[in-house]
């Protein structure tokens, strides 16, 4: 039974009718016991017999050609097997959903840190030693490494609605500000890793990857072989945040080396290599212009930005994505410029666009409220548009106003004091808020559900990168088939299973979840037929089927396995309606008036993100995103060298992701009940990225409230805060 479904119209809210009562509950993750006992198997935990160890060698020039390598020197090191260079090696990881090989450069160097060779040895120690001792000769070329000064820029046609220029010039109150954000790293805790093993002309690759279906195609294209000869395994992935969307250089190198040497090869990036070569989030330079009437109606919105990337990468951080649909105005205009530089390529990092764009945009909204003498909450509530301001589509489901007011009530926003007037000892106290928005997507996805008696198995190549896929797919299946969740086994991360969306863009639960739902719905029809009732009249609960005054146990009805496979893809609803998660973030900070240190004291996020599939894992996702907001606002900054573009902060001691002590215990998340009928048949929206979108801006706005000083360059490290306090 194969079902192909296109999302052309709203579907019945079946998950509200089913009786098992497991959907939405805060069920513990079924994979939890393995994770807490160290028995969940991540890529590098495997060590097949006969395995050799590979370590990548990096280029140490910004641009040029490799003219030679002193291979013999390192081949003489005890235990070293080979120094592998190959035209099929890839310059950088594939962009998300590429499905084809990334740029293959042969002997060309395009950025400092580019992987250019793989040293393979019998031991990790020998491979690492030799990789560092390999002398490489170059013909270096001049390269532009700074987005500020590179002559090579591309500016897109502006996205517009109405007439921004006349709205702007007519505005009674204007805000015109420039902002900067630095490059950021995904910095997943698991370094990128791959183990390749060939059997004849088939390769099996274990790798830390988010999108197995696409990654399979990427590896096949990289190697120049048929995809049917590739199998990818990624049952556990130690965090992704976009950095493992695409096949990486370590995987290509492992596959090439394993083929050449006829034995399994494991390549785990060192942490420094992760910083050097994994796609970074671009730095941004932003300009936000807001015009309004004196009574607080926004009339003009413009958000222009400059981001960067290397030649050959189509990705550009979509900085103004949320600015285009959060608030209405008479005239709107958004222009992006991409600077081409010879530096570590840029790609998707958690909430590409919103994560940094909303820092600036929502800070500008706050400053407009100040200029108007209005409460920033009131300004936002007053300017929510009826429909998408650019393309006029209706919103599929939007409880932004409810999130703002509910959040304000819970946070105690009404008690807000005059900026810069509250202190506790040396600490200045302030509160701030911001809207949250992250557009929602549906990506083609397939899944299979097998049912034997009261035991079900879900099969899809979908991944669980910490998001809770194992839990939610079990819950959807259990709910649909009327089984305890413990009776459902979920198999993920194997490219031999039906291809899913993968984990990215917050669309994984929507897409893979819908495919599982549809497959289970197919099984319900089969069960109804066997019971002799209409599918609509069927009730499944605790392994019992009821309908039309009949009742039977699933163990009787389904004594031998039945299975159903379903595929979902987006359809007419994606064009007719605009779907996005919405929310509101609130933060309280303390700023030390002497040292400029900033501590977040509490945060609240109120979010409407469609149906919640698992209250516990959803909350974790939201919290994690909010903490990323703290990082973007306060601690995270990748620095690169102005001369050769190399990343200076290339380890976890120099790139500061938030630590425990940066995060207060008082971190609250509230979900407002919502169903998005236009999004998908399970009425869900993405969760993983909404938490970060706007969260940092709430922190930034709280800093302004505490100190009466506005920061425009983020993160607000102590040196930047001190400069403001001195000024």
């Amino acid at each position, binding site marked *: 039974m194969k079902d192909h479904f296109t999302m052309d119209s709203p579907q019945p809210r079946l998950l509200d009718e089913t009786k098992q009562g497991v959907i939405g509950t805060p069920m513990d993750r079924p994979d*939890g016991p393995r994770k807490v*006992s160290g028995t969940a198997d991540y890529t*590098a935990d495997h060590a097949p017999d006969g395995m050799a160890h590979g370590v990548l060698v990096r280029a140490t020039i910004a641009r040029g050609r490799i003219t030679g390598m002193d291979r013999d020197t390192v081949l003489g090191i005890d235990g070293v097997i080979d120094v592998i260079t190959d035209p099929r090696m890839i310059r950088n990881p594939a962009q998300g959903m590429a499905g084809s090989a990334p740029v293959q450069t042969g002997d060309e160097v395009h950025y400092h840190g580019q992987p250019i060779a793989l040293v393979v040895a019998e031991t990790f120690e020998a491979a690492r030693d030799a990789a560092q001792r390999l002398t490489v000769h170059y013909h270096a070329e001049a390269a532009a490494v700074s987005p500020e000064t590179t002559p090579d820029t591309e500016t897109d046609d502006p996205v517009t609605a109405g007439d921004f220029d006349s709205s702007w010039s007519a505005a009674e109150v204007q805000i015109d500000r420039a902002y900067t954000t630095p490059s950021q790293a995904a910095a997943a805790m698991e370094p990128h890793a791959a183990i390749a093993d060939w059997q004849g002309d088939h390769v099996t690759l274990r790798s830390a990857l988010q999108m197995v279906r696409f990654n399979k195609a990427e590896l096949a294209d990289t190697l120049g072989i048929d995809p049917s000869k590739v199998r990818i395994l990624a049952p556990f992935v130690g965090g992704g945040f976009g950095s493992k969307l695409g096949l990486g250089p370590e995987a290509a190198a492992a596959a090439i080396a394993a083929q050449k040497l006829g034995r399994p090869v494991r390549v785990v990036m060192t942490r420094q290599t992760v910083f050097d070569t994994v796609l970074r989030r671009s730095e941004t330079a932003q300009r936000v212009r807001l015009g309004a009437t004196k009574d607080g109606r926004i009339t003009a919105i413009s958000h222009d930005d400059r981001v960067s990337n290397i030649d050959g990468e189509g990705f550009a951080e979509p900085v103004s994505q949320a600015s285009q649909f959060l608030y209405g105005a008479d005239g709107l205009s958004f222009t992006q410029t991409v600077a081409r530089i010879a530096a570590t390529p840029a790609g998707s990092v958690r909430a590409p666009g919103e994560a940094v764009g909303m820092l600036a945009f929502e800070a500008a909204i706050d400053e407009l409220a100040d200029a108007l003498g209005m409460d920033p909450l009131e300004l936002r509530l007053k300017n929510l548009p009826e429909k998408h301001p650019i393309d006029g589509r209706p919103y599929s489901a939007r409880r932004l106003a409810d999130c703002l007011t509910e959040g304000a009530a819970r946070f105690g926003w009404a008690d807000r004091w005059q900026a810069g007037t509250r202190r506790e000892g040396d600490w200045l106290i302030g509160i701030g808020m911001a809207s949250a928005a992250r557009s929602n997507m549906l990506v083609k996805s397939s899944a299979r559900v097998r049912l034997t008696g009261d035991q079900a198995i879900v099969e899809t190549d979908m991944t669980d990168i910490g998001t809770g896929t194992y839990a939610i797919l079990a819950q959807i299946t259990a709910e649909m088939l009327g089984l305890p969740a413990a009776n459902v086994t979920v198999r993920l991360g194997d490219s031999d299973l039906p291809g899913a969306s993968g984990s990215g863009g917050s669309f994984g639960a929507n897409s893979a979840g819908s495919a599982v739902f549809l497959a289970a719905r197919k099984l319900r029809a089969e069960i109804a037929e066997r019971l002799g009732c209409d599918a609509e009249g069927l009730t499944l609960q605790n392994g019992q089927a009821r309908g039309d005054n009949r009742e039977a146990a699933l163990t009787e009805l389904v004594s031998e396995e039945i299975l159903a496979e379903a595929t979902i893809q987006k359809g007419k609803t994606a064009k007719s309606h605009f779907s996005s998660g919405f929310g509101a973030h609130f933060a309280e900070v303390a700023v030390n008036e002497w040292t400029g240190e900033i501590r977040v004291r509490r945060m609240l996020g109120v979010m409407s993100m469609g149906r919640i599939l698992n209250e516990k894992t959803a909350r974790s996702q939201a919290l994690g995103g909010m903490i990323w907001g703290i990082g973007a606002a306060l601690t995270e900054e990748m620095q690169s060298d102005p001369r050769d573009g190399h990343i200076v902060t290339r380890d976890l001691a120099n790139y500061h992701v938030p630590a425990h002590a940066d995060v207060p*215990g008082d971190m609250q998340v509230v979900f407002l009940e919502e169903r998005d009928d236009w999004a998908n048949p399970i009425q869900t929206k993405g969760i993983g990225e909404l938490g970060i979108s706007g969260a940092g801006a709430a922190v930034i706005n709280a800093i302004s409230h505490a100190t009466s000083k506005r920061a425009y360059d983020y993160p607000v490290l102590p040196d930047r805060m001190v400069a403001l306090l001195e000024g």
Partner: protein
Amino acid sequence: MKTYLSVNAKSYAVEHDPRRTLLDTLRDDLGLPGTKKGCDHGQCGACTILLNGERVNACLCLTAMHDGDEITTIEGIGSPELLSELQKAFVEKDGYQCGFCTPGQIMSATALLQEIANGAPSYVSDDLDSAALTDAEIAERMSGNLCRCSAYPLIREAIAMAAEGKE
């Protein structure tokens, strides 16, 4: 060269390169991959183990230097079928997401509870002679364990819950 280790109360004689770290020995020589390599430089805490009862980064230990030492890894704390109170609390509170830093967090928390019981102060202790089990204390003491999924508040709730259970 050869080094004798006691790991999770089991004796091992390991033949190894002098350059081998305890982390690589555990993972690749002794088949105990629960201890994770997140940075290999003492900057993330994913490889936290107990060495003679104290938490350390296994990546910053040369195996050669630990002849005769007693080591406890996550595998020695509990199995999926028989979890420790702390492990159970992590599951119940969702004190993880991807799970990669989790063994290190749990090893670190195991030691933390003992350190507080011993009266050891921290940077945020109001008084160097007191060690309270407040959230700020747990946060400071756990700061050597990064979690990029940022399960921090839930990790600390789990630790507090397990600590309460002990009292």
